[in-house]
């Protein structure tokens, strides 16, 4: 009977996830019983859950829990903090945004929290099973959130496109998992690395393993919108409610990169000769296509959608410096990217009473709302990579890592496309400060939580830009 031993569960290992799930359940109960129509209770409960979960991430002990399904190491703790920060800022922005449309309901916050739990499970996954469950928990919540405006035709269409293409990508991912499982006989990452290093050849042959890995890369490539898997991005980013777009652009993308790091850089570093070239091409195409298409957009959300695609290309570059350096640069840029991207989408959420403004409609914003224009300029400069902002150091570490690993050409393309991106980021600033508005635009009055979120994101951008060591210390502890 000794193969029926009671497994050591290790509840403390999933404390952040548990706390968030608990908050989600409490919000649902509150919604049902107290009739929290204005969403005040839901907001405070989400904020409390997110802060408690953030504190709980400092309890990482490096142990594997639930029969090695999840790991609670410094990497997952750091990723958790990225996800929680993104969710926290998005939650704060959502309240005034939803109130404007009369839709500040509890279920929005519940779905947001559950999506965050999915991201955290993905970041901590040590097994295909948990990685898949985390990914689906994240994706299913986001599909619903993208279609949250039930009366809005564009929101419904965005949800449908996101769902179909997301499910398509999941199909590729699971098919790839099947073949990697077939080749190595296990779904556990540690066991896979062990099998490979023990020298036992993949079953029935090496191509089985590589075929599986290629499919997994394609499946996850959809989620993090690498070119050519990015076709859904502009439509979904434009159609979804703007705070949801912010979450898709930051948290969901960070979770996809976390899964790629766990699979490719930690479990299969030995196969770099096979997947390295794939990442080289993906990074190159993503940087070029993302930036070129962003250049010609007239709608602000579409422009930021392509800008987010381009940023995915910079992040993908980290996989080529196949060592700790790459992962550290990736983590730093994820922090920086989260602050500035939630920041810009936060401003877009709160700048107008109407969804989907054109870039030219930002003319004169500096006069009507100096605060919004100022923080927007800061986020845009950071996205462009101006020294003194988070974006500068983020890009610097990524490009330096690529150069050090001998990918000078790719780093040069990165720098050139960054220079190109100055044009479309600065254009928004020019409109805000130097053009007069042609028609009066009804701005949202900035409720407390929205302003807090923007101030926090701006502070994050500045602190990371002036004192990158503050975060670099905890990143150094990952390995």
């Amino acid at each position: 009977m000794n193969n029926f031993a009671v497994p050591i569960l290790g509840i403390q290992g999933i404390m952040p996830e548990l706390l968030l799930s608990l908050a989600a359940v409490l919000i649902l109960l509150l919604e049902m019983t107290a009739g929290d129509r204005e969403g005040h209770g839901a907001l405070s409960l989400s904020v409390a859950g997110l802060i408690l979960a953030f504190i709980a991430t400092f309890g990482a002990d490096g142990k594997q829990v639930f029969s090695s399904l999840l790991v609670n190491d410094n990497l997952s703790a750091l990723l958790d903090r990225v996800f929680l920060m993104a969710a926290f800022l998005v939650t704060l922005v959502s309240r005034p945004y939803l109130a404007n449309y009369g839709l500040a309901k509890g279920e929005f916050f519940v779905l947001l929290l559950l999506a965050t739990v999915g991201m955290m499970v993905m970041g901590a996954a040590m097994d295909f099973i948990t990685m898949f469950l985390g990914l689906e928990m994240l994706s299913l919540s986001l599909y619903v959130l993208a279609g949250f405006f039930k009366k809005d035709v564009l929101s419904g269409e965005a949800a449908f496109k996101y769902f179909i293409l997301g499910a398509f990508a999941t199909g590729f991912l699971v098919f790839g998992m099947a073949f990697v499982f077939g080749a190595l006989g296990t779904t556990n990452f540690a066991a896979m690395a062990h099998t490979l290093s023990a020298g036992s050849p993949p079953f029935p042959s090496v191509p089985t393993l590589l075929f599986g890995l290629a499919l997994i890369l394609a499946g996850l490539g959809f989620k993090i919108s690498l070119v050519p898997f990015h076709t859904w991005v502009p439509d979904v980013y434009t159609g979804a409610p703007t705070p949801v777009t912010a979450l898709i652009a930051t948290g969901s993308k960070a979770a996809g990169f976390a899964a790629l790091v766990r699979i490719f850089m930690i479990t299969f570093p030995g196969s770099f000769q096979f997947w390295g070239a794939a990442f080289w091409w993906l990074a190159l195409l993503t940087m070029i296509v993302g930036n070129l298409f962003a250049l010609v957009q007239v709608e602000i959300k579409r422009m930021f959608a392509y800008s987010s695609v381009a940023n995915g290309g910079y992040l993908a570059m980290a996989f080529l410096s196949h060592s700790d350096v790459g992962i550290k640069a990736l983590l730093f840029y994820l922090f920086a990217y989260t602050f500035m991207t939630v920041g810009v989408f936060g401003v877009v959420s709160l700048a107008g009473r109407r969804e989907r403004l054109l870039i030219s409609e930002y003319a004169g914003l500096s006069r009507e709302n100096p605060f919004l224009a100022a923080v927007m300029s800061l986020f845009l400069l950071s996205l462009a990579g101006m020294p003194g902002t988070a974006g500068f150091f983020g890009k610097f570490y990524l490009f330096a890592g690529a150069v050090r690993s001998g990918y000078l050409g790719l780093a040069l393309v990165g720098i050139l496309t960054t220079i190109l991106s100055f044009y479309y980021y600065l254009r928004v600033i020019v409109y805000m400060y130097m053009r007069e508005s042609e028609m009066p635009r009804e701005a949202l009055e900035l409720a407390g939580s929205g302003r807090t979120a923007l101030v926090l994101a701006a502070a994050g951008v500045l602190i990371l830009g002036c004192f990158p060591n503050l975060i670099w210390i905890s990143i150094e502890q990952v390995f």
Partner: protein
Amino acid sequence: MITLSHYLFLSMILFALGVTGLMVRRNAIILLMSVELMLNAANLAVVAFARFRPAPASADNGMVLVFMVMAVAAAEVAIGLAILLNLYRQRRTVNADELNVLKG
């Protein structure tokens, strides 16, 4: 004698059918069915791999993956149908070609 390659061949055909269905069919319900086909092709491959794995390795956790995929696929269809229903209420159509308000 049915070998692993037979199962894998069948699984590949199912997967290809699913992908083709998603590419060429325009009815959203058929798109949902194609997604299911892709997931079940993967399940078949996992089960076949686990069955034909040479001893001594045990590959039980693959079976767990299959059950998880089945459960999640059910949840996915539920959400997909809800999104579709909402879409139908707005537009009176579930034809993917007519969903072109966003530029694509």
